C-alpha cells in the first residue's frame, strides 16, 4: 500500500530505489559534484546548465546505454517495459524519473546488466549514475520556477470551518462530528481534488449555518415557553405498570427510595421549570415524600397528599442550566415505608406513583452574546439603527467571506428577514445566509474580466491563503486591513505578517493539522490496541502520545530548530501516563510538560510511542509498516508498488504468517525474489525499532527471545538498534543532496507545499520545491525558513487566470 506521494507515483518510485544510494551516500551525489565543480553557487549542490546536460547525455548516458542496455531495453517492446534508449534530453529522463532511478539502482547493485553480459567498469557505472542523478536533479532547478501551477477551488475542511466560526463569531461548533468526514488526498484533508460536495454535506451546511447563527446572535420569537411532556413509558426508574382496563394510563411505581426521570436535551443555558404529575400509595405515619432533582441537585421537596394513585397532583420547581446539553431530571421518592402484615391482611406499603414529567422552558429570553455586545460597541456611533445593522452585516460578511461584500450584497442580506423583523432577528437571518453562502464555504478566487495569463493574487486572496495555511482559520482584521490597502503583496509586509502569524498562538493549528496528518498521528484516535496485551494503552495514553509528537513538532517550529531535530531532539513532552509508559519518574498530573531526555535512550519522533503505535498491529509490531513509514512518510521515498504477481501483503503475507519469529518471517521475505527487491529495504529499517513493542513500550525480549534490532541494508551498511538507525535516517540527505533521494528535509517541504496549496504536486512543481529547498541552510534547515520560502513562492502568491467562463 503506497501512500500517494506528492510528486505523483512516478517520482515516488524513484526515490525509494535510491534509498540505498543516498543512505550510503554513494556515487550519485559524488558523481554529480564532480560535474558541478565549475559552478560557484553557494547552495549545497549547484544545478547544471542546459549545455552541461546535453553534453553529458551525449558523452556519458548514450554511450553507456548503447553498450550495456540497448540490446534489450529499446525498441517497441523493450524488456520490462523499460526503454532506455529513446530519451533525447535530460528533461525526458527527468520525466521518467521513476524508471530511470530504478534502472540506476539495478546497475549499481550489480543486478544489471545480467550475469551473461559483460560488466561495465566501476568508473563507467559511477559516471552513468552520476549523470542520471544530475538530470533528475535538474528538474528541481529553481531557475525554472515561476509558473504557479494548477488552480484548485478549495472548500473549508471541517477543521477550518470550526476554527473560522470560533475565531470570528466566538461559537464552538463541533464540525468534526456534525459534517461527514473529509476525504483525504495526498495525505491531507484540505486537498481540493479529494473534496466533494454531497447532498448530505450541503444539508449539514445549511443546518450548521442556522445552528451557528443562533448561537452567535441570540434571538427567539417571543411567546410562551415550549412545554415538553413525558409519559411513564418514556421515563426510567421504578417499574412500569402498563395501562389496563382498570388503569387508563401507564404508570411508574417507585416502591423503594429512588429516582424516576429521564435525560433531556435542553437547547441553551437558562431557567427551566420541572413539573411532576404524581400520586402515592399512602402508609405509615408520614405522607409520601418526593424531591424534584436536576442531576444531584435537589430543586424542591414535596408531600404527596393524594390518596388514589389514579388521581395525580402536580408539583413543580425551577432549575437553571449553564449551557445547552443533556441533563438528567427526575422525581425522587425519599421516604419508603413497608411493614408486612401481622394478621394476614395487606401489608403497609408506601409507594410513589409517577404519571409523567414536564419540562417547560427556557423561561427567559436569551441574553446578548459576546458577539452582539461587541458589534453594538463597535457601531455605537452609527446614526441610526438601520445603519448599525448594515454595518454589522457588512462586518460579518467581510470576516466570513474574507472579502468585503458589495453594497447590494448587504442590502440583499438585510432583506431576508420578514417585514418589521426585530433587529437581532434580521442580524441572525443575515448571518445564517452568510454562513450558507458558497462564498463562505468555498475559498473562491475569481478572474472575471482579467486577461489570460498569470496574475498576482489580490490582497484578500493572499490573506486567505496565508491564514488558512498558518492558522487553519480566517484572516484577522489586520490581514484584511492590509489587503484593503493592497499592501500584503509587498515582500516586507508579507514577511512581517508571516512573523506575526507564526508567533500568534493560532499557528499551533499548523502543528496540529499539518503534523498530525503528515506524521499520521491522527490515526491514533481510531487505532485499535489489544488491551489484553497492553492494558495501559487507554484512550488517555493514546491522546498523550499524539500530543507529545505535535508538541515536539511545534517546539521545533517555534524555536527555529533544525528539521533534523525532529529525529534526535533530546527533549520531549509527557504527562503522568506517558511518563509512566516511558519509565520516566516523578511526573504527576495529566498536563503535558517538557522534560529532558538525558539519561534515557529515547530520542526524536521515531521513538515516540505515537508513531511506534500507529505503525503496529493491535497485538504485535510490524517491521514492514514501520519501515514503510520511515521511507514514505518521513523520507518522501515511497517504494514502487509490488510487481504484478506479488501483492502488498506487508508482513501479513500468508507465506510468512506461520513463521515463529519476526526474523524468520524476514528471512522468508528475502527468499522470494519478487518480494526481496523492496523488503530488502523496508524490513531492516523496521527491525531497527524492534526494541519497542506495539504501543511503543521498551522491551528486551519478544516471544521469549532476546530482541535483535540489527539490520543490514542492501548495500552492506549495517546498524544495531534504534539509535544507529536514527542516525542513518537523519543523515540520509546530510550533504545537502535533498533533490534526488530519501530526504527528511525534502519530505517536509513537499508535504508543506501540498498542505499550503491544497493540491498534489506535479512534475511541473519541482522547480518550486527546488526554490524552497534552495532557501534553506543545509547545516540548519528550519520549518520556519521553509514556510517563509513557500509563502514567497510564485505558486503561493500567484495564480493562472481561468478566463474560459464566457
Amino acid at each position, binding site marked *: *500500500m*503506497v*501512500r500517494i506521494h506528492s510528486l505523483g507515483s512516478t517520482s515516488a518510485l524513484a526515490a525509494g530505489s535510491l534509498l540505498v544510494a543516498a543512505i550510503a551516500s554513494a556515487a550519485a551525489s559524488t558523481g554529480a559534484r564532480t560535474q558541478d565543480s565549475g559552478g560557484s553557487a553557494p547552495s549545497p549542490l549547484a544545478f547544471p546548465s542546459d549545455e552541461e546536460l546535453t553534453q553529458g547525455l551525449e558523452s556519458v548516458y548514450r554511450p553507456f546505454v548503447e553498450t550495456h542496455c540497448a540490446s534489450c531495453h529499446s525498441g517497441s517492446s523493450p524488456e520490462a517495459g523499460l526503454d532506455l534508449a529513446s530519451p533525447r534530453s535530460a528533461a525526458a529522463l527527468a520525466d521518467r524519473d521513476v524508471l530511470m532511478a530504478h534502472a540506476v539502482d539495478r546497475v549499481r547493485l550489480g543486478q544489471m546488466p545480467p550475469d551473461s553480459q559483460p560488466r561495465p567498469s566501476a568508473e563507467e557505472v559511477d559516471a552513468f549514475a552520476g549523470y542520471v542523478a544530475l538530470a533528475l536533479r535538474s528538474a528541481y532547478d529553481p531557475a525554472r520556477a515561476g509558473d504557479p501551477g494548477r*488552480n484548485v*477551488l478549495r*472548500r473549508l475542511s471541517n477543521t477550518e470551518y470550526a476554527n473560522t466560526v470560533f475565531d470570528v463569531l466566538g461559537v464552538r461548533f463541533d464540525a468534526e462530528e456534525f459534517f*461527514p*468526514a473529509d*476525504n*483525504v*488526498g*495526498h*495525505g491531507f484533508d484540505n486537498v481540493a*481534488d479529494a473534496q*466533494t460536495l*454531497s*447532498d*448530505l*454535506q450541503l444539508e449539514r451546511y*445549511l443546518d450548521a*449555518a*442556522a445552528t451557528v447563527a443562533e448561537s452567535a446572535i441570540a434571538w*427567539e420569537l417571543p*411567546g410562551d415557553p*415550549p412545554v415538553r*411532556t*413525558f*409519559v411513564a413509558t*418514556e421515563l426510567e426508574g421504578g417499574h412500569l405498570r402498563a395501562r389496563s382496563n382498570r388503569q387508563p394510563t401507564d404508570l411508574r411505581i417507585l416502591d423503594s427510595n429512588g429516582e424516576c426521570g429521564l*435525560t*433531556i436535551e435542553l437547547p441553551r443555558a437558562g431557567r427551566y421549570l420541572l413539573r411532576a404529575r404524581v400520586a402515592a400509595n399512602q402508609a405509615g405515619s408520614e405522607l409520601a415524600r418526593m424531591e424534584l432533582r436536576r442531576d444531584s441537585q435537589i430543586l424542591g421537596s414535596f408531600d404527596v397528599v393524594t390518596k388514589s394513585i389514579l388521581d395525580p397532583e402536580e408539583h413543580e420547581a425551577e432549575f437553571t442550566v449553564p449551557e445547552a446539553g*443533556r441533563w438528567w431530571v427526575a422525581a425522587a421518592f425519599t421516604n419508603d415505608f413497608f411493614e408486612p402484615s401481622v394478621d394476614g391482611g395487606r401489608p403497609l406499603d408506601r409507594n410513589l406513583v409517577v404519571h409523567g414529567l414536564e419540562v417547560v422552558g427556557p423561561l427567559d429570553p436569551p441574553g446578548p452574546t459576546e458577539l452582539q455586545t461587541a458589534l453594538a460597541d463597535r457601531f455605537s456611533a452609527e446614526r441610526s439603527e438601520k445603519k448599525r445593522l448594515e454595518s454589522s452585516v457588512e462586518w460579518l460578511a467581510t470576516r466570513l467571506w474574507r472579502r468585503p461584500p458589495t453594497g447590494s450584497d448587504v442590502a*440583499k*442580506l438585510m432583506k*431576508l428577514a420578514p417585514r418589521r423583523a426585530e433587529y437581532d432577528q434580521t442580524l441572525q437571518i443575515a448571518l445564517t*445566509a452568510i454562513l450558507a*453562502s*458558497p462564498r463562505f464555504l468555498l475559498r*473562491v478566487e*475569481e*478572474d*472575471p474580466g482579467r486577461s489570460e495569463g498569470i496574475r498576482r493574487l489580490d490582497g484578500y486572496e493572499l490573506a486567505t491563503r496565508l491564514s488558512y495555511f498558518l492558522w487553519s482559520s480566517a484572516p484577522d482584521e489586520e490581514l484584511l486591513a492590509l489587503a484593503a490597502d493592497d499592501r500584503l503583496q509587498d515582500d516586507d509586509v508579507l514577511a512581517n505578517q508571516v512573523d506575526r502569524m507564526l508567533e500568534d498562538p493560532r499557528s499551533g493549528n499548523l502543528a496540529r493539522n499539518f503534523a498530525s496528518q503528515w506524521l499520521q498521528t491522527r*490515526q491514533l484516535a481510531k487505532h*485499535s490496541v*489489544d*488491551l489484553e496485551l497492553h492494558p495501559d494503552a487507554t484512550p488517555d495514553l493514546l491522546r498523550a502520545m499524539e500530543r507529545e509528537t505535535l508538541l515536539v513538532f511545534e517546539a521545533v517550529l517555534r524555536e527555529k530548530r533544525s528539521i533534523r531535530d525532529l529525529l534526535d531532539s533530546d527533549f520531549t513532552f509527557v504527562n503522568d501516563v506517558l511518563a509512566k509508559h516511558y519509565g520516566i519518574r516523578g511526573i504527576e498530573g495529566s498536563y503535558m510538560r517538557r522534560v529532558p531526555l538525558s539519561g534515557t535512550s529515547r530520542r526524536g519522533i521515531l521513538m515516540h510511542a505515537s508513531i511506534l503505535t500507529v505503525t503496529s*498491529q*493491535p497485538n504485535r509490531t510490524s517491521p514492514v509498516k514501520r519501515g514503510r513509514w520511515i521511507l514514505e512518510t518521513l523520507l518522501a521515498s515511497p517504494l514502487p*508498488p509490488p*510487481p*504484478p504477481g506479488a*501483492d*502488498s501483503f506487508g508482513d*501479513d503475507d500468508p507465506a510468512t*504468517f*506461520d513463521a515463529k519469529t519476526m526474523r524468520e518471517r524476514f528471512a522468508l521475505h528475502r527468499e522470494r525474489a519478487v518480494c526481496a527487491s523492496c523488503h530488502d529495504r523496508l524490513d531492516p529499517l523496521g527491525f531497527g525499532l524492534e526494541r519497542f513493542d506495539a504501543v511503543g513500550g521498551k522491551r528486551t525480549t519478544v516471544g521469549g527471545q532476546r530482541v535483535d534490532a540489527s539490520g543490514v541494508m542492501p548495500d552492506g551498511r549495517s546498524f544495531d538498534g534504534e539509535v544507529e538507525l536514527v542516525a542513518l535516517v537523519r543523515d540520509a540527505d546530510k550533504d545537502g543532496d535533498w533533490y534526488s533521494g530519501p530526504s527528511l528535509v525534502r519530505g517536509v517541504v513537499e508535504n508543506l507545499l501540498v498542505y499550503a496549496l491544497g493540491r*498534489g504536486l506535479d512534475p511541473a512543481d519541482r522547480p518550486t520545491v527546488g526554490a524552497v529547498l534552495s532557501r534553506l541552510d543545509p547545516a540548519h534547515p528550519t520549518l520556519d525558513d521553509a514556510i517563509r520560502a513557500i509563502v514567497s513562492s510564485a505558486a503561493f502568491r500567484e495564480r493562472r*487566470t481561468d478566463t*474560459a*467562463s464566457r
Partner: protein
Amino acid sequence: MTNRTNLARTSRMLGRPLERRTLLRGLGATLALPLLDAMQPSLLRPGAAPSVPSRLVYVYVPNGVNQDAWWPSREGRNYKPSRTLAALGDLKDKTLVLRGLTHDKARANGDGPGDHARAASTWLTGVQILKGGATVRAAQSADQIVAAEVGGETRFRSLEIGCERGQSNGECDSGYACAYNFHVSWKGDAQPLPQENDPRMLFERIFGDAQSAASASVAAERRERRKSVLDYVGDEIRKLRRDLGAGDRHKIDQFADALREFERKLEFSEGDALVLPDGTQKPTGIPGVFSDHVRLLFEVLALALRADQTRVATFMYAREVSSRTFPEIGVPDAHHALSHHGGNAGTLLKLEKIDALHMQLFGEFLARLDSYEEGSDSVLDHSMIVYGSCISDGDKHNHENLPTLVAGGGELAKDRIKLDRYADVGNETPMNELHIALMKRMGIKLDAFGDADRELSI
C-alpha cells in the same frame, strides 16, 4: 397489538442490553403516541404512489470471508446452512445464496495491486476504477441509478450508512485514491457519497429533531427563514457559476445539484410529523461496542424503510482494509490482518467468528423488517437486500465466487429469482448481471451494466 415494536425490548431480546447512554429516552409527546395505522406509507406521501413500494438495500462486508465456513456444502432447496449462514437465524425461506458471481473489473487487469480499493468501489459500480493520485473515477453505482430514477418518490432518494467514519489520514491501497476504500455508493463518476455513522444524527435527519418542542409560530418562522435563505443561496450559486472559470464549475454544479435535492425534500412532509412506534428511543451517539453500533444503525434504517422515507440504501459494516478489532467476541486482532490467514487454523476460526457476527447482525435486521406488517405481508417481503463482499477470500484477494446472499420476498420472486435455496449460477458470472436483475425490479431497464449485458438468470 402484536406488531408493536419496542426497540428497547427487542434489543434486549437480541442479547446484551444496549448501553444505556446510547439511547435517549423521551422523544416528547409527538412521538410517544401509540403506533397508529398512520404508519402506512401511502399516507405519508403526497400524490399517488404504489401502495406497496419495492426497496433495494445493499449491505457490504469488507476484507472477504472465511470460505470454508461460508459456503454451504450442497446446492438446491434443501441445502444445509453453513456455519456462517446458520448465524442468520430462521430466515432461510426468505434468502437465496448465490455462488459463482464474479467482478472481473475488480481484478488488476494491468493496474497492479489494490484489490481492496477496487473491491469496495467496483462492487456496485461494476467498472474498473482509475488508479491515479487523489483523483477518483468510478461510475454511478447501481443503488444511485435507482435513486436517481425512482428515488424521487420518497423524501430521501437514498441513504448511505456505515460504521466506520472516513479516514483521518492518507493510508490507502497501492496508489489508489483513499476514497475508494470507504465508499460503495457513487452518485457520479467522481462523486463517492459519504455515509452517516452516528445513529443519532441519522435518526434526527430522518425523523426530525423531535426534542425541539417548538411551538407552531416558531416552526412557521423557521420555515419562512429557511425558504428565504435557500433562495438566497440559490442566487449566490448562479452568480458564482457565472463568474467562475470553467475549471471550477463542476464544484459549483455539485453545490447547485445538492441544493435542488434539498429543495425537493422540503416538498415532502417533515420527518418529525411521523408517528413512530411506541417506545421508540432516539439513539444518543455512537456506542463503543461494534455490534451495538450496527444494531442502532440498522434499527433506524429499518424505521426509515418502514415509514417509506427512502427505498434505496447502502450499508457498510466497515471500509475495505478495516483494522477493526472485535474484543466482544474474543477477537482482539485487526480484521484486515486476520483476513490474510495463510491457512492458519486459529486465524481462520477468528475470521469465522467475525463473519458469524456480521451475519447475525444482518439476520436481526432482516427479522426486524419481517416483523413490520405491510399490506398482507411484511416490509421484508417488499424489499431486495443484497449482502456480501467484493473480495472472496481475503488471503487471495480474489474477486470470483463472491460471497453473496440475497434476501427479500415477492419482489425477487417476480420473474425468475426463486428464494429459499443455494444456487450456483456458474463460474465467472458477472456480478453486474445481478445488479441488472435487481434494478429491473426497481423499474429500471438496462440492456447492459459494466461487463454484463443481460440480467441474472437462475
